[in-house]
């Protein structure tokens, strides 16, 4: 109201200049071909991109578009853009459970010919399965992930090998007044589904048939429900089990005065405890995830790199994706960001990051110095559990998490029936999500 006509005109001019300037800037940066990589935040991923840009030698420029930190947020953002036909997306960083869904919605370009050969070479079998849908390859594996059992060797010098053994040990430790808690992801979200899927596979059971078209929920799946109920109601978990996601589990073990004896979590916790609680880090050990009877089959996570079917630079996008997940890049990411490689050869690579200098844990780490648990990871990866490969995985996961929550209230037979019911509806994409 108070501004004079001249003032207003000035303001308008300033606004116009601003708009013009930003348009010019936008044009300026896209002088060459730009490959947009939509991928989760990973601390040193920009260095990987910089390396690949050097290799591209000016043919294109890879730009890192950071997605939100949580998986749901990442999926939502990509899905919203893809559903709207956004051509700006070139390379997509997909969680291993999203490939069927994105492929079926016709958002992914199939990998064929030389690209396919390159993307399949040297890849471990478990992770490779997650990149396929209907026997076609839709993504190149970037990194895998697998949970281990982490423990404090001063509390339990000899770690348990099965869930029931672990529960008994925890009860005994509780009686002795020592740290006793078993920490795992028990909140109503994907993490609980991962825990349950591992238990089912370890008990030799199945949730869905192999083609992902019908619900099985066999004996093993019911046995897994029994074990999940046992651990949740034995008084050996954190009181806020039903709010515990990865981060709470990790912090629960690291915090001063922690009452935790066991932690089931991804390998990143190893690097995190070194700074989070250096005293406890000295006794922080790992072993294979506990089984039900016999050795465990552990659920794999991780990311795959796919090319959007709406990309306007597909050949360059394939090349960029291959570079971002090459053996060299995977080794760098494993050492710097703690994400386990999907290529078998990287695990045996003894060279430090700079092969011309001697290995040194702080300045020039190698797989051996930064990844002491790599043998256990390899052992688990040799016989992993894959989460059901289905287009409606998101619905499946939401319903499973809902039916299993809270784990202490599970009644194995009737919960199994509820799950069978809900999952069948989800497979037909009928019914609603809770």
């Amino acid at each position, binding site marked *: 109201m108070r501004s004079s006509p001249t003032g207003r005109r000035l303001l308008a001019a300033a606004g116009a200049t601003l708009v013009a300037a930003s348009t010019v800037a936008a044009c300026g940066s896209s002088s060459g071909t730009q490959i947009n990589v939509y991928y989760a935040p990973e601390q040193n991923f920009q260095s990987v991109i910089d390396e690949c840009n050097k290799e591209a030698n000016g043919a294109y420029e890879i730009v890192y578009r950071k997605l939100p930190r949580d998986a749901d947020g990442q999926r939502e953002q990509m899905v919203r853009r893809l559903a709207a036909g956004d051509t700006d997306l070139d390379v997509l960083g997909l969680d291993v459970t999203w490939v069927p869904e994105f492929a079926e919605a016709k958002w992914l370009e199939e990998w064929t010919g030389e690209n396919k050969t390159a993307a399949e070479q040297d890849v471990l079998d478990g992770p490779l399965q997650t990149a396929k849908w209907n026997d076609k390859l839709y993504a190149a594996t970037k990194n895998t992930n697998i949970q281990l059992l982490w423990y404090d060797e001063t509390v339990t010098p000899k770690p348990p090998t099965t869930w029931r053994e672990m529960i008994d040990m925890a009860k005994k430790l509780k009686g002795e007044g020592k740290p006793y808690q078993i920490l795992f992801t028990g909140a109503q979200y994907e993490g609980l589904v991962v825990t349950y899927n591992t238990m089912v596979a370890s008990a030799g059971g199945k949730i869905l048939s192999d083609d992902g078209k019908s619900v099985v929920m066999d004996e093993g799946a019911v046995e897994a429900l029994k074990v999940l109920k046992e651990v949740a109601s034995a008084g050996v978990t954190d009181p*806020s089990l039903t709010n515990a996601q990865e981060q709470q589990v990790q912090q629960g073990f690291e915090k001063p005065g922690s009452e935790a004896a066991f932690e089931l979590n991804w390998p990143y916790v190893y690097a995190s405890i070194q700074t989070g609680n250096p005293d406890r880090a000295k006794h922080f050990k790992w072993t294979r995830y506990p089984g039900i009877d016999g050795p465990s089959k552990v659920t794999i996570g991780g990311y795959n790199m796919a090319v959007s079917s709406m990309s306007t630079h597909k050949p360059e996008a394939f090349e960029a994706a291959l570079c971002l997940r090459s053996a060299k890049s995977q080794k760098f990411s494993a050492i710097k960001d703690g994400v386990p490689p999907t290529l078998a050869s990287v695990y045996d690579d003894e060279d430090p990051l700079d092969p011309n200098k001697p290995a040194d844990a702080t300045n020039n780490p190698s797989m051996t110095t930064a990844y002491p648990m790599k043998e256990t990871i390899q052992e688990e990866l040799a016989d992993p559990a894959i989460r059901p490969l289905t287009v409606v995985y998101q619905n499946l996961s*939401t319903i499973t998490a809902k039916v299993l929550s809270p784990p202490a209230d599970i009644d194995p037979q009737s919960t199994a029936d509820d799950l069978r019911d809900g999952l069948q509806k989800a497979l037909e994409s009928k019914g*609603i*999500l809770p």
Partner: protein
Amino acid sequence: MSQTVDSEPSEVVAAPSPKKGKPVLSEGKRAERRLGLLLCAPAAIVMVAVTAWPIIYSVWLSLQRYDLRFPDQREFVFLDNYIAVLSDGYWWTAFGITALLTVVSVVIELVLGMLLALVMHRTIVGRGLVRTVSLIPYGIVTVVAAFSWFYAWNTDTGYLSDLLGADAPLTQQIPSLLIIILAEVWKTTPFMALLLMAGLALVPEDLLKAASMDGASAWQRFTKVIIPVMKPAILVALLFRTLDAFRIFDNIFVLTKGANDTSSVSMQTYNNLIRGLNLGIGSTMSVLIFIAVAIIAFIFIKLFGASAPGNDPGGKR
């Protein structure tokens, strides 16, 4: 009892014009009116385009089987989606929770808001300061406030759960609901108070003085004078808050993510639409929420006689 009062405050409201029939307009007046309508038209058209079109489109989507993951199976299914939603236990649980949260939080907000409004209205010293301070919660972004409640009630960082000796309150249904209500009440009571204060300003001081001369106690003055005069303001405040509370999303999203049966209808719509990519079912839920909100507004306006925003029941100003 309110009759005596209703006739009194006519001095506040301008006397209604005596003639009821359509006034004859002069040529100049009519041209002026036409120009006025023309000037309003662009805004009105934009409003219709941005509000009516999405509503019609949602209704259209809600009549189809349309799952983004099965683009080939898109088909027209009439009311199947409505049957699917309305016959599902999850929907009615969420509906019940939403209704409970709405009623409880709005009632508490009304009582506290009224107290706050009286305090703000009667303060003599530092009136501006009191009003500003009481508005702070309303000025804080809901998600930010929700996160501070979340951490306050968490077991690791929670000073409030430590204080009350509560054991992970956000992992059980009843404590979670109470915390959600607390967060809602804390956040929106100032808004309620602000609306009510506007109503309080309508109560003529003379009326209160006359009532106290007649021997009315403070409580009697409140229930027999202030409340009847304020009734329109109270109803508008209640209407706004009820509509708003029924759409509760952010506090639940941050505090529990809908775990342990604390999901509201908006949460569920979001889960089906954005996470489930099921445009058919998701739109059906949006339409149902729209209908529920419309019914709430209808009840308030027709049955309780709240004035719709923009309408002045007392005549023209």
